[in-house]
C-alpha cells in the first residue's frame, strides 16, 4: 500500500511548520500509550513548545507515510527541525545524556530525573489530520 499523497503532503507541511513535532498515541493531556506518555514527560521537563498529532485515528495510513518519509513505522515519533530523532528509547537516552536539550537549544533541567507525570503547560495541539 503506497502512502496516501494527500496525507503525506499534510505531514510534510506539519514538519515544516513545527520546529518540534511529536506523533503520539493520544494527546499530551491524555496519552494512550506508555511510550507516548514518556516522550511527553521528557518534552514537558525540557519546557519546549511542540506540535502534537494524535496518530490513533489514522494509524495505518500514517505508518505508510512516515515509512516513506523517515523509514520508521511505529509511534511515538519525535521530529526536530524536520528530522526524525526517534521513538521513546532514543528520546529518553538523549534526554539523560543532555543531547536532547542541546538539540532543542534549551537548558538541561538540573539533575536527571525519571519522567514526571505530564502536566502540559502550553501544549500546542495540532488539529487532527483528516484524510480525503
Amino acid at each position, binding site marked *: 500500500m503506497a502512502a496516501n499523497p494527500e496525507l503525506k503532503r499534510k505531514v510534510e507541511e506539519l514538519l515544516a511548520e513545527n520546529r518540534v513535532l511529536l506523533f503520539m498515541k493520544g494527546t499530551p493531556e491524555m496519552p494512550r500509550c506508555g*511510550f507516548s506518555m514518556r516522550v511527553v514527560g521528557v518534552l514537558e521537563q525540557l519546557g519546549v513548545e511542540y506540535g502534537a498529532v494524535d496518530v490513533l485515528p489514522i494509524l495505518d495510513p500514517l505508518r505508510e507515510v512516515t515509512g516513506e518519509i523517515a*523509514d*520508521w513505522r*511505529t509511534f511515538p515519533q519525535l521530529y526536530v527541525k524536520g528530522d526524525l*530523532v*526517534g*521513538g521513546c528509547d532514543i528520546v529518553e*537516552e538523549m534526554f539523560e545524556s543532555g543531547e536532547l536539550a542541546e538539540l532543542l537549544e534549551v537548558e538541561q533541567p538540573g539533575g536527571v530525573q525519571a519522567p514526571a507525570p505530564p502536566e502540559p503547560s502550553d501544549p500546542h495541539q495540532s488539529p487532527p489530520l483528516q484524510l480525503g
Partner: protein
Amino acid sequence: MIAEALPGAEVEVVDETGGGDHLRAIVRAPQFRGRTRIDQHRMVRAAVQSKMDDGSIHALSITASPS
C-alpha cells in the same frame, strides 16, 4: 534473528511483560560504530521486521550501542 542480521553483535532480548509481545532488545554491535542512534535502531528493527509485521511483536524497545 538480530544476531544473524548483525554478525558479531551481542544481543540480549528481555520479555518486558511476560506475554512475549513487548520485548526489549539490548544490542551491542560493531556495525553500529559511527551511526546515529536512529540508524542503529533501524538496523535492529529491520532484523525483526517480519515479526513486527505479523503482529507477534507488538512493541520493541531498543537499547543499542557500538561495540
